[in-house]
């Protein structure tokens, strides 16, 4: 059974320079409570993987906590571009490793299976290999066809947020699982924050307790991102961040009392 932790205990596990994979996608199910704990502890030089990022990446960039960012895209969805992400890339202030959605999944699957790389047809004939040292074009040894070899990328930690967990540690959510399952299987340790506890019904679970090392009870732990169906995106909060632009600070992402 996964261990139960407080969010404040997280910095004791995750040190400077760790590679953390952040679950959710876009403005849904970002583990903001967990990330705020890392920011409050002053973590630095983090290597961050966010499949489709939003305010998760913005928070860590605004706190100066990021050295390297792996992502297929970061934005505030309908509210527009993500200001700190945009500035970081234009200034070159973090190492940005650009992935496609498909190649990032390959990198996680390779890590989960324990193989050094996996071949795919994705990203062939694009500029991505020049922007991502985990991608290398080659030839299939059987057919000679061009393939993109994707090197395994194993996060030290996966930080996920779900609607609920049960007593045994199974995780439940409604809506898109995104890459949470792949991150959980690939990461060294998996920490899942949750809004609620619920009765056990493992056949309906989204993530098995087999892949979860610790859980953190964090009501509204995704705020201001959404956690369907418990809470929607706080549109005013997202708009406030977008309006502040590069002046947006971590204080804007402190939850209301």
């Amino acid at each position: 059974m996964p261990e139960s932790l407080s969010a404040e205990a997280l910095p004791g596990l995750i040190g400077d320079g760790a590679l953390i994979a952040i679950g959710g996608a876009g403005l849904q199910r970002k583990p903001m409570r967990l990330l705020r704990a890392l920011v409050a502890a002053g973590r630095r030089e983090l290597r961050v993987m966010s499949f489709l990022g939003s305010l998760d990446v913005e928070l860590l960039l605004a706190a100066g906590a990021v050295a390297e960012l792996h992502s297929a895209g970061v934005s505030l969805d309908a509210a527009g571009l993500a200001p700190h992400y945009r500035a970081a890339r234009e200034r070159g202030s973090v190492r940005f490793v650009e992935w496609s959605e498909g190649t990032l999944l390959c990198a996680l699957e390779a890590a989960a299976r324990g193989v050094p790389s996996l071949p795919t047809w994705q990203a062939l004939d694009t500029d991505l290999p020049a922007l991502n040292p985990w991608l290398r074009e080659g030839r299939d040894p059987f057919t000679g066809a061009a393939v993109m070899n994707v090197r395994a990328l194993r996060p030290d930690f996966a930080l996920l947020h779900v609607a609920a967990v049960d007593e045994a540690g199974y995780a439940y959510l409604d809506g898109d699982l995104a890459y949470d399952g792949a991150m959980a299987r690939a990461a060294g340790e998996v920490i899942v924050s949750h809004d609620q506890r619920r009765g056990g019904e493992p056949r309906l679970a989204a993530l098995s307790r087999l892949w979860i090392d610790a859980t953190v009870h964090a009501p509204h732990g995704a705020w201001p991102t959404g956690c369907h169906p418990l809470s929607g995106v706080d549109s005013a909060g997202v708009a406030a961040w977008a309006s502040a632009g590069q002046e947006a600070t971590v204080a804007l992402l402190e939850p209301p009392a």
Partner: protein
Amino acid sequence: MSAAIADLLTAALAREIATSGIRLFAVTTPASVAAALAARELGAPELALAAGFSALDGAPEPAVTRGEAGLLTRGPTFRDDPGDVFVALARGRVGVVAQPAQLDASGRTNLSGIGEPGHPRVALPGARGLPDHRTRSRVWYLYATHGPRQLVKRVDVVCGATPPPGALRRLLTPAGCFELGERGWRALWLTAAGAELVATAPAFGVVLDGAEPVLEQPDAEALAALERVDPHGVRRIEFASGVDAPRLWRAAAEREAA
């Protein structure tokens, strides 16, 4: 852009999807959700809508606060493996709408940045799934404007490659509908302002011969279907001007919160 053009393009997309023969459509924006839902009423009742990575047969709705395109489904759906969307792409069984920042004369796409690869003058969201469309799946590009910033001779960063031979790639803009062939993009039909707009993006390479049909009104049956599936007109937000878009977005967000 006027609501009339937004409706004309979304109705055209709905008809395209309905007649394409695809079984699975991956929605990416509120307008694409509306078009796909309308397509079900226009002769494709069994069309599956991929609403996110783990719900390939979901029930999305046109919305602005429920994921990037109302992707959170109404009611329970079968939970697919997130990798299955790439299986569907590889097998050519999926259609998708994409809105890259740049689209070029050879069908390459860019959503990474403006400027040299790796050194963007203007950083954009990122490649997203564009590099994963190198298949014979059907892709529609849907733009709110038709101009030289988006439609270029060569993209700054190649996120999406030139599609393989035989892959259907169609472009819908306020100028009309265009299809990519061996010799570049050609017009299938134009709007009333189409010829004038095409002339604003000469590097994109569309050459008109004056015989292109002109479509002045939305497909009435498709528009009626759109009104049924999207009665609040959420589909029009992504086509709205800089002044109107935030107002429409706030109104939709308040309605969804209620």
